[in-house]
């Protein structure tokens, strides 16, 4: 056991001494922030809807155009989140119900039996899914022109909400926590 811990220690030292670059900026996932960060935040995928939630940063001098763009992005994200949350919950519940039914009848839960369920679920969901598809396609296209304007704005303006510029300005996450 002592040999193992010595091995680990020397290995660890080896890694540090052979490092050719300084400690790189860490894109670590954080559970809570001690100071607010001047950048948009993206989250881990939601366990039910599988979509990644995004929190948009609101700069102090936000113009009405920027506000409109941010709010339309939030609307689209919410629309998708709502649909997939509902759809995936329905799937999981329906699947559990189907399996319970099978066990009641004393049948084994095989891949063939599940295929029957998958087909049934897909067919039942057809109208609901097509309505979502059409709405999503329309929304996606409708976001193109405002997205173009937002891209032009971000090119022109000095408001840079990315982490690298936040580090330069000194209010990125790591700068803040070390200074205070």
């Amino acid at each position, binding site marked *: 056991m002592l040999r193992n811990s010595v091995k680990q220690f020397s290995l660890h030292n080896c890694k540090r001494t052979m490092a050719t670059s300084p400690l790189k900026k860490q894109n670590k996932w954080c559970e809570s922030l001690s100071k607010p*960060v001047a950048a948009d935040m*993206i989250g881990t995928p939601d*366990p039910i809807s*599988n979509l990644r939630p995004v929190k948009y940063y609101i700069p102090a001098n936000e113009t009405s155009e920027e506000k409109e763009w941010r709010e339309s992005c939030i609307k689209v994200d919410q629309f998708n989140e709502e649909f997939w949350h509902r759809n995936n919950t329905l799937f999981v*519940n329906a699947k559990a119900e189907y399996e319970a039914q099978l066990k009641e009848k004393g049948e084994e839960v095989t891949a063939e039996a*599940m295929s029957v369920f998958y087909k049934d679920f897909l067919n039942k969901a057809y109208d609901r899914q097509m309505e979502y598809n059409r709405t999503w396609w329309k929304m996606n296209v409708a976001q193109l022109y405002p997205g173009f304007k937002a891209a032009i704005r971000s090119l022109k303006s000095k408001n840079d909400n990315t982490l690298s510029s936040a580090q330069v300005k000194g209010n990125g996450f790591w700068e803040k926590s070390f200074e205070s």
Partner: protein
Amino acid sequence: MLRSSPRLHGLISKRNHVLKSTYFPITYKTPTTSTANIIISPYYSTQATPTPTPTEFKGTKYKPLNGVTLPELPKVYKELIKAKLGGLVALTAMAGYAIAPGAMDVSSLLYTTVGTTLCISSANSINQWIEIPYDAQMLRTRNRVLGRRALSPFHAFNFGVLTGTAGVAMLATMVNPLTAALGAANIFLYTAVYTPMKRASIANTWAGAVVGGIPPMMGWAAVTNSLDPGAWVLGAILYAWQFPHFNSLAWNLRADYSKAGYRMMSVTDPKLNARVSLRYSLAMFPLCWSLPYLDITSWTFAADSTIINAALLNDKSAKQLFFGSIMHLPILLALMMIHKTSKSDQEDSYEFIEVEEEV
């Protein structure tokens, strides 16, 4: 009998069943964490996305969304265009160029390849732009560029349009208009026909197979500026290949497709899925034999291809078939190129016909 009534409702009124079926509960029910789940989980390896129960979920973690920096951009673009898949498709186009009869010109081959690659990149980028929320639902595609917001949707769309325009323009000016037209048609077919059809009807697999069959025809048209019977046979071979390739992939993903609302025959009609895959695997035999018949390859190719196609038929499981199909195609294309009839052979046959006419 009462339990089967939701199904009956589904048959009678497709719209009203939303309210009456037990598949649509009124209140949100948390997924059960009963021991039943643990017992039956070994049976469905098809469920690629395990849904964690509320007791396991530890909360969402956030990280700052730094926009992509310039040095990172090439890597992100490579992911956006699905570079590995695109590379294989470009190879089929190059194979079409190599097999077509006629003088081989290195610069024209280069322009054809670059132009085709640009067209493929365009199609793949726009497809990813359309399918942002759908890709997130499937484990295989969850970490794509737009899902993790490495690029904005506008950026991806713009990139797609630019590469498509550049690709078609390059083919039209440096190769020939026929190849450019085929490239443009392929982009349209992939983004505007195949992608929406995936959500609407199982016929999407056939439309998608056409998309796969066009690149070698583009390569051929780049050489001869026409679509000879040989080009059509080559396209048909690639078209037929798509079915065992895609159907075997789709078989293992049926749970994800069903959940995410993709209409694939592996979900709606598994037997059809297997039949279609077998049907087109068998069709590869006569298609490969017609290449020597049209004097594009020697008859040795008929023998070689029969062995290779039989190996594809021999694959027992879906996983075997999928990986088998990936190995099968490059080998088949290589054999075609090895057994291609040389120019002297073709000239001999023309001379023979001339002599006959004189007599």
